[in-house]
């Protein structure tokens, strides 16, 4: 298996987006939320609805960086019987139906560590994953996973944050691959939103230090916000707002209502349109104010 960046789906996708002159939409859902079948059906529909890259959350019982929406999603998924192995089964099923859309696994370290680092990167790659984000594995600790991942051709995506100062950024950027995930707020997922002008400044600072594409996430909740971020970054990541849509389509017992997948993908389409329109000349002028 080749590990050349040019042959990787993420690099290919960002190259295509650049050629189209637009940013991408990255969607996040937790694997197995609200149940494994519905979650897989939704995952498969996301690219058709306009997701350029899909992130699939590997559920953990103690998600320290997540707000109430994603905490609740994880709880639903665990109740439905999700495991890391079943999450990788979902990846395999997604990949069988979609050869091109990059899929990134995102989660916390303990389930990976317990699964076994070598076994995880091998199985994740074989299932068709393209990258991995491990929220609680900073550069100081990732030597036990990152080289294994990149050797398998799995991009190891690192996070940069508003606290990443000039001393910190080189530590983060050295060894990162795939893209840089810029966490646009101080805080957990789904709680605050950053202004596009502040994000633009942060992205510009990152661009001076790295050639990697920059995706911005945490706090993008609406189509206009996604559009504003898409005007300044290479991709906009939407997670909690999608997960809240899932929660809004459950019956009193927590079971998926028939309209769930259509409703969530409808929201994704609206986000995708805003992202695609963000750099049309008429809009670009507005955003640059």
């Amino acid at each position, binding site marked *: 298996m080749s590990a050349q960046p040019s042959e990787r789906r993420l690099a290919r996708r960002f190259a295509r987006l650049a050629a189209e002159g637009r940013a991408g939409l990255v969607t996040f859902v937790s694997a197995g939320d609200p149940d494994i079948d519905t979650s897989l059906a939704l995952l498969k529909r996301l690219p058709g609805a306009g997701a350029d890259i899909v992130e699939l959350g590997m559920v953990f019982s103690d998600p320290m960086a997540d707000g109430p929406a994603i905490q609740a999603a994880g709880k639903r998924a665990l109740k439905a019987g999700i495991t890391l192995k079943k999450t990788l089964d979902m990846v395999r099923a997604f990949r069988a139906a979609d050869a091109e859309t990059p899929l990134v696994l995102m989660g916390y370290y303990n*389930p990976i560590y317990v699964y076994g680092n070598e076994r995880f990167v091998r199985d994740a790659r074989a299932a068709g994953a393209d990258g991995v984000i491990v929220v609680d594995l900073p550069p100081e600790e990732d030597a036990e996973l990152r080289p294994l991942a990149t050797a398998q051709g799995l991009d190891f995506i690192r996070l940069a944050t508003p606290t*990443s100062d000039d001393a910190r950024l080189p530590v983060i950027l050295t060894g990162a691959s795939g893209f840089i995930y810029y966490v646009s707020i101080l805080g957990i997922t789904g*709680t605050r939103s950053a202004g596009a002008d502040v994000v633009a400044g942060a992205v510009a600072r990152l661009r001076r230090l790295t050639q990697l594409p920059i995706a911005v996430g945490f706090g993008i909740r609406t189509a206009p916000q996604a559009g504003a971020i898409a005007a300044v970054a290479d991709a906009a990541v939407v997670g909690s707002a999608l997960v809240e849509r899932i929660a809004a389509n459950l019956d009193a017992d927590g079971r998926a209502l028939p309209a769930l997948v259509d409703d969530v993908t409808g929201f994704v389409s609206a986000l995708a349109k805003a992202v695609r329109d963000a750099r049309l000349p008429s809009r670009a002028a507005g955003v640059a104010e």
Partner: protein
Amino acid sequence: MPQINTYSAGPDENGHFGLYGGRFVAETLMPLILEVERAYTAAKADADFQRELDYYLRDYVGRPSPLYFAERMTKHFGGAKIYFKREELNHTGAHKINSCMGQILLAQRMGKKRIIAETGAGQHGVATATVCALFGLSCVIYMGQTDIERQAPNVFRMKLLGAELRPVTSGSATLKDAMNEALRDWVANVDSTYYLIGTAAGPHPYPAMVRDFQSVIGREVRAEMLEREGRLPDTLLACVGGGSNAIGLFHSFLDDASVRMIGVEAAGHGLDTGQHAASINGGRPGVLHGNRTYLLHDEDGQITEAHSISAGLDYPGIGPEHSWLNDIGRVEYAAITDREALDAFQLCSRLEGILPALEPAHALAHLGKIAGRLPRDHIIVINLCGRGDKDVFTAARALGVTL
């Protein structure tokens, strides 16, 4: 790793005790964790900091705490000579204040005005609220809803001290969930806030820093024992949840080969029931709350709920230095059930006129298992790390008494 010729030099520069410890936190927190480490390293080398800490430990906390010869308990078991290190006589009634005092002075050196903390039994919450009141700092305490219900007296004490109490209902609504919420708060408030962790766990430098502040316990025991008996103790006993009182007692003796050390975990309803809080005796290594250590988790790496009658031990992990000390065989780790702890709680009350907290009651129960079989010239020191006033409601309920 260099050749080990001491057990007390750890962790390495990255906060690792062998396989354990480290800094497994979200990137947002990394610069702050590194800043805490720099500030602590500087404070440790600053004689003024140590002088100020010593002043407050003496005049405010009431140190040194006595080393008390428990004569009636010694006679009762008819074996080893038993001493209590009376940490329950500290201001606020537990050892927790030792580390709170050190950390609050550090937080002020760092210019932080807002303090957050997690608490299980409420002892750390009370100690944190106390030092915040002392220095006029804003204080937010995260506490699991389950613990709030079983530790009502401490909840009220924290409020009297001016702390804002935030109930945590996520997960099992106990200590681990309170720690999750405190970490979430910290990520959102990195500029203003210092996270005052209550035990010798979490991301580096906390395990080493909390240990250093708690090591005053062992240093005093060494001096007191040399003065009293002219020699070192033979066995040290302490309960272990996160393990700060145990590491505080053990650390100064790690290189004294003649001193046996036993940490006592909470076996809850029994190790074979799955309802316990014994991370070493009933768990495996994993990564949670910023460090790699022994944890209670399932085959998929999901953290499982701990159970102990003692809220302060009801945590599915343990400080990383204990995990290392276990693996290298320097410290033994035993486990005591709820029932055994309750029996020891009552025995100590009747024999010595001291109501121990349910946490050290676990160590007292293990003492009962070993003391009678040891010779009379064998000296055991047990860390009586907290007083039991907070536990009278829990104990009454468990004993079928309506108050």
